[in-house]
C-alpha cells in the first residue's frame, strides 16, 4: 500500500512522542485500542486548570504507520486548544489531513477516541467528571467502524 507524504512524514518524524507523569493532577491519560486488534494508542494532555488550555500533549502508539501518524497529528492539533475546542476535533478531519484510505479510517477514529479519553480522564481527576468514570467516551460515536 502506498502511504501519503504526510503519513510518511509523521511516521518518520513523529511529533510529541513520550509520556507525561500520569499521577500529575493536571495530566489526563487516554489509552484506547487493544493489542489483539493491532492498535493501541496512549495520548496524554497537560491542561492549565485556570485557562483550560492544553499546554502539552504526548503520545505513544502501537499500530500501523497510519495509526502512528493519526495520533502524532492529534497531539499537534490539541496543543494550544482549550479542552472544549479539542473535543470538537473529528476523525474525518484527520482522514482528510492525512489522506487516509478507507481501510485506515479506524486509525483516525482511534485517535479521536484517544483525545476524548485523555480529556475525560483529566476532567475526572479535576472533579469535573461527567457520568463516564474512565476511558472511552460514550458520546463519541464515530462515523465509521
Amino acid at each position, binding site marked *: 500500500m502506498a502511504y501519503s507524504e504526510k503519513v510518511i512524514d509523521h511516521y518518520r518524524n513523529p511529533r510529541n512522542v513520550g509520556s507525561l507523569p500520569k499521577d500529575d493532577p493536571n495530566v489526563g491519560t487516554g489509552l484506547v485500542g*487493544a493489542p489483539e486488534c493491532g492498535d493501541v494508542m496512549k495520548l496524554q494532555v497537560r491542561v492549565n486548570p485556570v485557562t483550560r488550555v492544553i499546554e502539552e500533549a504526548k503520545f505513544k502508539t502501537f499500530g500501523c504507520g497510519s495509526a502512528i501518524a493519526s495520533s502524532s497529528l492529534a497531539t499537534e492539533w490539541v496543543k494550544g486548544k482549550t479542552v472544549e475546542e479539542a473535543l470538537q476535533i473529528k476523525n474525518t478531519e484527520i482522514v482528510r489531513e492525512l489522506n487516509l484510505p478507507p481501510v485506515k479510517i479506524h486509525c483516525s477514529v482511534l485517535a479521536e477516541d484517544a483525545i476524548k479519553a485523555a480529556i475525560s480522564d483529566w476532567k475526572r481527576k479535576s472533579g469535573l467528571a461527567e457520568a463516564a468514570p474512565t476511558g472511552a467516551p460514550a458520546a463519541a460515536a464515530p462515523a465509521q467502524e
Partner: protein
Amino acid sequence: MAIKLPIYMDHHATTPVDPRVLEAMLPYFTEKFGNAASRNHSFGWTAEEAVENARAQIARLINATPKEIIFTSGATESNNLAIKGAAEMYREKGNHIITQVTEHKAVLDTCKRLEKYGYQVTYLPVERDGRINPDDLRRAITPKTILISIMYANNEIGVIQPIEEIGRIAKEHGVLFHCDGVQAVGKIPVDVQKDGIDLLSLSAHKIYGPKGVGALYVRRRNPRVQLAAIIDGGGHERGMRSGTLNVPGIVGLGKACEICMNEMATESERLRRLRDRLKAGIEARLDEVYVNGSMVHRLPNNLNMSFAYVEGESLLMGINDVAVSSGSACTSATLEPSYVLKALGVGEDLAHTSIRFGLGRFNTEEEVDYVVERVVETVNRLRELSPLYELAKEGVDLSKMQWKAD
C-alpha cells in the same frame, strides 16, 4: 561490496526468473513458437520435444516418471485439479476429505467449495510447532475418506509436515494423498515414491521459473490415480487438462527444476547458514523476539518471527528498502491477522507483530547483515514509540489488562 537496494527477501511469495531459465525459454517465444499439439509438422515436433524434455526434468526432481506430469497454469490450478478432480472421480467410493488448518487458501477454499456440494471435510489442527499429529490423521479416517490433502511445507512459517508418515497412513487405509509441494519442491528433497505421495502440486515461479505455469504429478502405478478434468477441451495432458500448452513457460519450469536438482545440496546449506545468521543477528540484539513454528522441521530459507510490542505493518514501513511480509492484519486483504499463526496458538497480539523472511538464491551475507541492522534499528525506534513496550517495562501484565477495544 556495495549493496543494491531494495533487497528482496520475500521468496515464499515469488522468485525472480534465473537468467539460465530465461535463456532456455527465449527461443520458444519466437523461432520455436509451434503448438506442441501440432503433430504434422516440424514446428509442432520441436515444441513437443521441448515439452517432453521439461516433463522429464520435472519428473527427475521428484522421482516420478515423465508421463505422470500434467502441466497447469500454476499451483492454484494444480491444487484445484487434484482435489476437485479426485473428489468427482471417487464420489462413488466416498465423500470425505481430510486436510489441515494451515494449508494455503488454494486448498482450503477448494475444500470449502466441495463442502457446498455435499462433501465432508475434516480440518486437522496443528500443534504448537505447526505440524499435524499423525494420530489425529489416523483417527480422522473413515470408510468414506477418499483424499488426504496436506502440504509439504508451509508458505508462512516454512514448517515441514511429517510427509513420509502421512503417506504411509494414507497407503495403509487405501486413501489418496495429495500434497501441495509448492514451497518444498526444489528446496528440499521431495521424492514421491519414498514419501508415498499420489498427487503433488508444484509451481515454476517459486523456484526461479516464470509465473503462470505449474504442474501436477498424478501417480500412474500403485495406485493408478484418475482425475475428472475441471477444464474441458482438446483432451491435452491425458484428458486431465485441456488447453494449448504454454511451451515457453513449460521449458522454463523444466529448466528451473534441473537447476534446483543440480544445486540443491549446496544451495540449501548456503541458505540455512544465511537464515541462521539472520536469526542470530536479530536475537543477539533484541529481546522479546519469538520464532513462530518449529526450527527443526523447517525450510532452510524461512524465518518467521514476532517482534513483541511492534506492529508488523509499521515495521515493514520502517524497513522499506527490504522486501519482506507480515502476518499483521493491516497487511492482509481480510484485515484479520494470519490464520496460520493463529492455528499455532500464537496470540493475536503477537500475530500482529510477525515478519516473514524468505531467503533466496541471490541473497548474500552482506544483505543479511544489512537487514539485521535495519530490523534492529527500526524495532528499537518503534518500541520507544510503543505504549505496550512501556507498560511491559513497568511490569504490567498486558494480558490481564482491560482493553477498550471497539
